[in-house]
């Protein structure tokens, strides 16, 4: 019951709630500011893409997305081959890297001794830090000759009748680009999936084993489903990187704006064409068509992420309903 004046900071009972309330409010505002700045930057980016492509949008309209021509001399531009190349390379890269990455993550989280697992994880995370240009150089000097001399001839002999492996192979192709992308995105899948798998509570595993499951059944049927949200998150992180990857792709994809059924044919991606042609784009329409390509890539990313969210929502809601 001290009525003598005391320093504000020395009377916790009286000033406690007010001071921590003030600090709490400040912290809240700072963090809210940080979060909304991200949102504002994204909206600003979309706005700039929209206004920066006004000439192209007015001239081509929706035809921009359906046309396959890219002719800077006649000033006819269409996004279709680039969108195809971007989506095709990313999809094939995912098909290669997800089983690989998930398998590696399961090995590192569940089966490997802890020390081996830590060391391997460290090396894998180093892979994620290698600059994209290095991957491009490795791609064109090591991977492409390797594919040309060692991998593709027997592949064509065995599976050449399939449309996806038809046609001549010049080294640079959608296939080579997909493999380089797969190597680049696998570290993301491995490191995030491994963390998520390690975070699954030990009692889940023990409960499964106690109910008579084998080690594999416990891993595949209990631990992995428990971590599935995180694993899907890692896959979409990897996909986001694959969609936007520029330098490594442009060195090995062949830079030919065409749509072919064969993976062995050269192609082109949105990021690669923007990187290649932006500096020398001489006319306004040319430049704004490149900006509109950026807008298309932005839209593809938003759509794929939206579908991903929907997928996660429906599967987890289903899982929740089951339990």
């Amino acid at each position, binding site marked *: 019951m001290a009525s003598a004046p005391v320093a504000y900071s020395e009377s916790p009972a009286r000033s406690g709630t007010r001071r921590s309330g003030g600090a709490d409010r400040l912290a809240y505002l700072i963090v809210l500011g940080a979060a909304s700045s991200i949102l504002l930057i994204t909206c600003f980016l979309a706005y700039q893409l929209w206004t920066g492509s006004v000439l192209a949008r007015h001239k081509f309209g929706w035809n921009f997305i359906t046309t396959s021509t890219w002719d*800077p001399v006649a000033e006819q531009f269409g996004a279709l081959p680039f969108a195809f190349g971007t989506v095709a390379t990313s999809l094939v890269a995912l098909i290669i890297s997800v089983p690989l990455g998930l398998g590696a993550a399961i090995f590192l989280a569940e089966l490997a001794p802890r020390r081996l697992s830590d060391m391997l994880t460290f090396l894998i995370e180093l892979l994620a830090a290698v600059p994209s240009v290095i991957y491009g150089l490795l791609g064109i000097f090591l991977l*492409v000759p390797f594919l040309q001399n060692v991998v593709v001839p027997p592949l064509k002999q065995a599976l050449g009748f399939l449309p996806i492996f038809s046609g001549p192979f010049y080294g*640079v192709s959608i296939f080579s680009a997909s493999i380089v992308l797969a190597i680049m995105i696998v570290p993301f899948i491995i490191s995030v999936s491994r963390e998520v798998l390690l975070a699954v509570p030990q009692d889940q595993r023990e409960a499964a084993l106690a109910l008579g499951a084998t080690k594999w059944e416990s891993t595949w049927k209990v631990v992995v489903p428990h971590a599935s949200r995180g694993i899907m998150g890692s896959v979409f992180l990897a996909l986001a990187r694959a969609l936007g990857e520029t330098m490594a792709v442009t060195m090995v994809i062949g830079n030919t704006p065409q749509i072919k059924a064969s993976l062995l044919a050269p192609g082109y991606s949105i990021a690669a064409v923007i990187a*290649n042609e932006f500096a020398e784009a*001489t006319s306004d329409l040319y430049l704004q068509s490149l900006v509109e390509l950026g807008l298309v890539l932005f839209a593809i990313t938003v759509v794929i992420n939206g579908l991903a969210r929907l997928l996660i929502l429906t599967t987890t809601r289903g899982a929740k309903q089951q339990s």
Partner: protein
Amino acid sequence: MMRRILSTTLGAALMAGIASAQPINVTGAGATFPYPMYSKWFDEYHKALPNIQINYQSVGSGAGIKQVTEGTVDFGASDGPMTDDQIKEFKAKRGTNILHFPTVLGAVVPIYNVPGVATDLNFTPEALAGIFLGKITKWNDPAIASANPGVKLPANDIVPVHRADGSGTTYIWTDYLSKISPEWSSKVGKNTSVKWPAGLSQPKNEGVAGQVKQTAGSIGYVELIYAVQTKMSYGKVKNKSGAFIKADLASVTAAAAGVTMPEDFRVSITDPAGANAYPIASFTWLLIPEVIKDQQKKKVIADFVKWMLGPGQKMTPALQYAPLPAAVVAKEEKALAKVH
């Protein structure tokens, strides 16, 4: 009295010292093709006049034209002369004319990888157009074989390789093809970036050269300087007079000599007259505004161009660029007076 004189002279010396030590920065941007030469020039110029710093960024001819039009740089550089529309746009935005000043001559050469062929191949204009149009598809096609008697050409497929990034080199190559092939001119045209009818694209000279080295049966085009410095073999091209010419300093200079230079210096010297002229050569230009408001910068730029036309030209052969013909130098020195 003595003290006053001393202090005034000291003050004046200090002011002069500060004024001369005040570094003057001039910025330029544009063509990548002459970048090695410009880099050396600006470096040497800075050594001669240490307080003058000219910064040049090789961002590409198109970007150079754009930036000088927007006024973000003091001068531009381009491998292809500005079009009439671009000149009008410059006048509208900056309120003055843009002047072209040729600096050096360069050339574009065909490089190839034909299994079993180690000698220099001869290419006719029709052969080059046909190959890049995708019409001539095999190395032992008569169009190529007839120009190379005695050379055993295999039946391999021809794989054309071209530049993926927009480039002055592509501009020069397509300018030549447009001149010698009406079909190329109507179907593809000339630009720093075009819709190639056939073949693979790789970014930069290094990309094209690497792809050609790795792909049997391929043919590409690179700058002469690049081919010489990387010791690549390149082919001969038939000129207007019917001779098969290999690109080198002499034949490139001969190409410039065979053309009358217009007043505004915007000229294409591909496919020129001249017995020894190499057909795929080009000037490269500095783009300088006629009226430069900043008098200091104007002096720096005008002085540099004068130096470039004198001592600068002597440095070009060492880097495999051909110097300007004497008549062009004289004409430029006169035109320099226009910059004010």
